[in-house]
């Protein structure tokens, strides 16, 4: 069977499974819709969190990004995993004890302020919406390349699928679908990596394989370093010293941002107990680590393969996959010196080959001559990654509207039935809006992901941490801190992002920190301002101090009336 038929088959079968799960696990109450009834097993929640977290970007783009960055690519690997340590140790158990459904719930109650809730609500909506548009685009790209449908049709199919199971199932449907999607995506990512690791090093474990000797007895990384240097690139494992401060700050912004992202935090409301929230974060990171430790191996294999297969080879003899990808424009050859041979070098004047980082994972099985079913599997995996993240984000958007905005702000008397109805309408509207934005993404969408992480790091993270660990923190401190953190971070990003219309030039970055890393500074600023302001204003009311006390121990109720002590 050809790769095309395998792709249709595997994508079709996996989609069918997601649909069945959605029908079986549909939500009947707001509690089921928002937090899957609060009874999800920690391992199940760990898998769902992992699928929620690993987006089209993690699955399709990250390995390619690392392949062309080398050592500095570690900022994504550490940045997008290290946040889970913060979640498990500093946030998840206490937020689970607090109960409730959303991050604005916590901010609103802990800081006894409707305005604080509103600020949190707007941040949650903004972060989730920018994120989800990128996922919709990812779905469109994957469909367009592999199912030979136009990009628009691809996005529309994606909208249809997510619409069906998110509207029907709410958090409950999404959780169990995400478990299936996790299995598909992790299998799809590791199988080709294992194949290629065996081919290149004889070791079936990619994590060990890329540090082993190749078939010629030379360490793979040493060989890649030499190949890279021969072509004028930096050695793959060498450290970019000018970039170290920036790498430090980007790693920080991604970690603190992860720990402040509403669609990740909300997953820890779905488990039954505080101890489940702790261990669930551990399972989530373990499942995420499978992909995140395989990705750097894939990067090394792909980079080596590209150089070996293409560098100094006659264009007339390129393999079939090269021609396939040339059609998409993501791989181009421009024979500058007209010798018919591919010059792939660091010097932009002479270099004739450009490879888009996004094709590395998708093209990898073809580059390594793997059987056609593996190619179909990778496509199904990429779609699983994009759909699972999109569904989780859409749920945050709908919960923000029906629960935080309607129930707790505009219409406190709304009945449970109407609230559930509103949640379904909100998610339906959000799916369609995200899909339309994904069809026609403004150029800045990719750029605002930096903003999403920066805002999460500089607003939610300090506000939640201080709400738990500093009993004296009051609304004046927290709100001032959040506003200063957001305004500072957003201004810096907009000023230094030409794609957002900013006039700033890279040589004027503060201490060389790029917009992607500024969230770390925004976060520090938020902490300092909040602490100072809170010490010069009145202490929070006694009930709030008692609430803070109660969320610190696992046992007992958070509300004072039925405290079991």
């Amino acid at each position, binding site marked *: 069977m050809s790769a095309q038929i395998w792709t249709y088959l595997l994508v079709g079968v996996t989609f069918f499974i997601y649909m069945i799960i959605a029908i079986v696990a549909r939500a009947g109450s707001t509690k089921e819709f928002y937090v899957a009834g609060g009874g999800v097993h920690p391992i199940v929640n760990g898998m769902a969190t992992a699928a929620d977290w690993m987006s089209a970007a993690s699955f399709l783009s990250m390995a390619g990004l690392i392949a062309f960055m080398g050592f500095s690519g570690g900022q994504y690997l550490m940045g997008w995993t290290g946040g889970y340590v913060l979640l498990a140790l500093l946030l998840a158990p206490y937020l689970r004890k607090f109960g409730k459904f959303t991050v604005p719930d916590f901010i609103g109650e802990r800081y006894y302020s409707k305005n604080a809730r509103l600020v949190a609500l707007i941040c949650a909506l903004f972060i989730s919406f920018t994120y989800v548009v990128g996922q919709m685009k990812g779905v469109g790209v994957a469909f367009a390349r592999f199912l030979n449908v136009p990009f628009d049709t691809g996005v529309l199919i994606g909208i249809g699928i997510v619409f069906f199971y998110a509207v029907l199932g709410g958090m409950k449907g999404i959780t169990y679908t995400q478990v299936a999607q996790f299995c598909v995506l992790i299998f799809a990512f590791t199988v080709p990596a294992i194949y290629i690791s065996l081919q290149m090093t004889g070791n079936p474990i990619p994590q060990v394989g890329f540090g082993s000797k190749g078939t010629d007895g030379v360490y793979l990384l040493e060989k890649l370093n030499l190949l890279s240097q021969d072509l004028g690139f930096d050695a793959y494992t060498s450290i970019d010293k000018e970039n170290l401060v920036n790498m430090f700050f980007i790693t920080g912004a991604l970690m603190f941002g992860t720990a402040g992202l509403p669609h990740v935090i909300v997953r820890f409301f779905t488990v039954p107990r505080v101890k489940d929230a702790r261990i669930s974060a551990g399972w989530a990171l373990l499942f995420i680590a499978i992909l995140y*430790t395989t990705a750097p191996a894939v990067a090394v294999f792909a980079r080596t393969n590209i150089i070996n297969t293409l560098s100094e080879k006659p264009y007339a003899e390129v393999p079939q996959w090269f021609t396939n990808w040339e059609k998409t424009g993501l791989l181009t050859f421009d024979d500058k010196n007209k010798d018919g041979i591919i010059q792939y070098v660091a010097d932009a004047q002479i270099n004739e080959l450009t490879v888009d980082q996004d094709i590395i994972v998708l093209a990898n099985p073809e580059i390594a001559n793997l059987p056609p079913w593996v190619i179909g599997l990778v496509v199904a995996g990429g779609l699983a990654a994009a759909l699972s993240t999109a569904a989780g984000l859409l749920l945050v958007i709908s919960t923000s509207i029906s629960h935080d905005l309607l129930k707790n702000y505009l219409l406190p008397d709304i009945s449970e039935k109407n609230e559930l109805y509103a949640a379904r309408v909100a998610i339906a509207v959000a799916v369609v809006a995200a899909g339309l934005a994904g069809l026609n993404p403004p150029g800045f969408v990719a750029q605002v992901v930096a903003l999403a992480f920066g805002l999460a790091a500089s607003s939610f993270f300090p506000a939640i941490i201080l709400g738990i660990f500093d009993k004296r923190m009051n609304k004046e401190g927290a709100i001032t801190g959040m506003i200063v953190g957001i305004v500072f971070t957003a201004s810096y990003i907009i000023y230094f992002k030409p794609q957002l219309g900013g006039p700033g030039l890279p040589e004027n970055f503060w201490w060389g920190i790029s917009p992607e890393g500024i969230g770390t500074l925004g976060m520090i600023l938020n902490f300092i301002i909040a602490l100072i302001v809170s010490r010069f204003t009145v202490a929070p009311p006694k009930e709030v101090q008692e609430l803070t006390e109660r969320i610190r*121990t696992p046992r007992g109720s958070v509300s004072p009336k039925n405290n079991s002590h």
Partner: protein
Amino acid sequence: MIKTKSTYWNTNLKYLALLLIVWFVVSFLFGIVFAEYLNQFKLGGFPLGFWFAHQGAIYIFVILIFIYVYLMNRLDKKHDVDEV
């Protein structure tokens, strides 16, 4: 009762401080600040600083969470604040 509660919380803070120091050291220090120095050592075919940035830090993150879960479950029981 008050005393147990504050001992419980202080022990928790002590665990957090220790584990977060390790978290910071393996990623920000070993994987970034001292990576250049560590790269002169080899772990199989991996320069050590590179290994921390691309592999080691992630493994240690996972281990840190499971250690914390173990310590806190023990502490919850000891102070009789664990859930049924």
